[in-house]
């Protein structure tokens, strides 16, 4: 199949993602330096909060969305062995999203949208920020539609056949994202945009926070699913073995997508506008969604063990040593799982209903999500990029050893950055401060940890630059001989010949999600229309 058009489509998305990523890494290092107070000349709340807002938007919205779209297009065309459906529409989505990013970047970089990426009404930003963010989301909806159409068309043409696992996961993610983004879309369209344009005088921040909580949890699973997809469909083959179980992989993706949605109130545990019964209900759901991650951990480690033993590894742990540690995909998954274990532990603390009070809005929280997102998830984005780049540009990877150094330094840098960050939270440091000016002895205990974080950030910045360098050198290498290896999807130990329809389709799960969402968000949203609330007028910052 001549897939030049698909490759160009995927590459364009991935480049936007990674350029946003490296720009945001520079901002991250500036932020740890500024916050530490070691360089008094840097001290500026207005620059700091403009930077934090931009860093958050670039990492959480631009890197992720563009990466997932580019990855999805390539997975769809290679796993289904079909060209991407309606390429002009796909390019339309790309440009729409890119125009949205540029439109949002202007107020962000000029300090007119320092409201952080979670918005915080009744503080208002320039309307262009909200409109730009909306266009980015609408662009991503185009991707969702294309994924769903390709899924349905393939199923129609291959009646009774199991959909390739990679495509099943990608379609689940497209469905998940449509549901996920609806919450924030309602907030932005009916509250924030009219509010920022002055069409409405007041808004209810309680309702805004509830709608944002709808999006805030499943969005992290939207980011995570490509990493899990790589765990299941690339890792076993790259390690030299087989996927432990195809059915369990599908079940894990289903439970992830279904239970990621109705549980957002663990972000509102400390909020006064929702009652405890609803919080507890969402809290229990939050623990349920730990299950697919535990299953994934098992399947991935079991697949690695099979590979290790096939390569001659012996003994209880000997197979770990015989894994191909110099394969970028295998190294990434090992480092990713290590970060997942610690990040997952922190996540259980956050999810624990009342214990959450101990760490809520302290430095622990950014420590946690950097470990689990920038660590566990993004290191798999790197692994996917290193794996796909040679196929996308038809040239071999510029340097495998540089790539290995990059992955190790990312892991080491992330450990040095996030460990002190967690400790700072337990010592009571709030998150989202630009400097420490509390006249209190407690702050002396924070200093050494602030200092360590500067080094963690520096290592990460170096690693990020090396990543971009390897990708650019691979693509621009004029001397490289042609590379014609094809993408390889892992084979399960037990090949699946046929599957029950609910393991091979999204229709049933869509209905289950609708019911669960109505139960868990129905009354909590409706209450704002029955309660005697007083809205808030807009505030600057």
């Amino acid at each position: 199949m001549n897939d030049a058009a698909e490759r160009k489509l995927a590459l364009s998305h991935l480049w936007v993602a990674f350029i946003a990523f490296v720009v945001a890494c520079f901002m991250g290092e500036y932020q740890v330096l500024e916050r530490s107070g070691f360089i008094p000349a840097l001290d500026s709340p207005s620059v700091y909060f403009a930077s934090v807002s931009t860093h958050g938007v670039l990492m959480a919205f631009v890197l992720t969305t563009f990466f997932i779209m580019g990855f999805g297009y390539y997975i769809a065309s290679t796993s289904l062995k079909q060209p991407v459906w309606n390429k002009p529409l796909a390019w339309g989505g790309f440009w729409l999203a890119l125009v949205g990013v540029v439109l949002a970047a202007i107020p962000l970089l000029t300090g007119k949208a320092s409201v952080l990426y979670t918005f915080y009404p009744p503080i208002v930003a320039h309307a262009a920020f909200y409109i730009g963010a909306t266009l980015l989301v609408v662009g991503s909806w185009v991707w969702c539609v294309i994924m769903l159409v390709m899924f349905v068309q393939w199923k129609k043409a291959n009646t009774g056949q199991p959909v390739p696992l990679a495509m099943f996961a990608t379609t689940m993610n497209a469905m998940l994202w449509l549901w996920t983004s609806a919450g924030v879309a309602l907030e932005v369209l009916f509250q924030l945009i009219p509010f920022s344009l002055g069409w409405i005088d007041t808004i209810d921040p309680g309702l805004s926070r509830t709608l944002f909580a709808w999006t805030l949890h499943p969005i992290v699973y939207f980011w995570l699913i490509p990493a899990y997809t790589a765990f299941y469909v690339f890792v076993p083959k790259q390690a030299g073995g087989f996927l432990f179980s195809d059915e369990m992989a599908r079940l894990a993706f289903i439970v992830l997508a279904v239970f990621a949605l109705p549980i957002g109130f663990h972000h509102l545990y400390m909020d006064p506008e929702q009652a405890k019964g609803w919080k507890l209900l969402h809290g229990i759901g939050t623990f349920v969604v730990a299950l697919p991650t535990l299953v994934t951990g098992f399947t991935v480690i079991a697949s690695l063990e099979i590979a290790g033993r096939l390569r001659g590894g012996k003994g209880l742990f000997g197979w770990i040593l015989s894994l191909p540690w110099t394969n970028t995909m295998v190294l990434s998954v090992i480092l990713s799982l290590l970060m997942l274990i610690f990040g997952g532990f922190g996540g259980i603390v956050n999810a624990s209903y009342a214990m959450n009070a101990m760490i809520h809005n302290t430095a622990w929280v950014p420590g946690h999500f950097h470990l689990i997102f920038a660590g566990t998830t993004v290191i798999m984005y790197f692994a996917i990029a290193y794996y796909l780049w040679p196929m996308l540009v038809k040239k071999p990877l510029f340097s495998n050893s540089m790539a290995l150094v990059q992955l190790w330094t990312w892991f080491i840098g992330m450990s040095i950055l996030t460990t002190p960050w967690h400790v700072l939270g337990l010592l009571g440091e709030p998150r989202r401060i630009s400097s420490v000016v509390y006249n209190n002895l407690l702050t002396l205990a924070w200093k050494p940890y602030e200092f360590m974080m500067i080094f963690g950030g520096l290592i990460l910045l170096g690693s990020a630059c090396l990543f971009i360098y390897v990708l650019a050198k691979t693509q621009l290498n004029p001397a490289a001989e042609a590379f014609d290896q094809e993408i390889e999807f892992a084979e399960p130990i037990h090949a699946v010949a046929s599957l029950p329809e609910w393991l091979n389709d999204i229709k049933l799960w869509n209905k289950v999600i609708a019911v669960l969402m109505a139960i868990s968000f129905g009354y909590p949203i409706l209450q704002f229309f029955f309660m005697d609330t007083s809205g808030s007028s807009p505030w600057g910052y």
Partner: protein
Amino acid sequence: MQTEPLKPKYEQLLRDFYTQFRAIHIDQLERKWITISLLVIGLFVGIITIDAFFHGVNPPSKVETVDSASLHLNKEFAEDNLGVQADEKGNVIVRMVAGRYAFFPKHISVPAEMPITLRWVSMDVLHGVHIPMTNMSTMIVPGYVAEITTTFPKPGEYPVLCNEYCGLGHNHMWSNISVIAKEDWKAPVKSAAKGGSTNE
């Protein structure tokens, strides 16, 4: 719509689902792992639920509204009613207003080892507050009263910190609280003329 055959239809669907579910190939080892995972999750959820229902361990969740724009006209949160008070039954109640960039009153004194009910309101934007080394933590959302009851175990001087981005001066938003040994603490007498007695 046919209503009559609906029930058997769903029963049949569920039965099919169950048979198909049983037919999925799940390895023995994986079965064990899933069972262990479910038990661990069940244990966590069980502890949390029992604590919530029988020990009253819940996050601040009193859905009570207030007009944040007119707190000065609100009897409860008018300036002279803020700070620490003890009601007829001896319960200690603290009323606090959060506004850019401080918590008012700027300093309060409360007893250690006694349950204290804190009622926080915002007069402008979103804030959050926590007192390090204690479990006093809540969001303060404009339009709502954030109420939390807690006990400070150890006497000492504690900072009261804003933990939610509320504007460019956010880092400067903090106040102080003195936790005094129970026996040294005297309930302030509520008097509108004097204001909260421990207020500065």
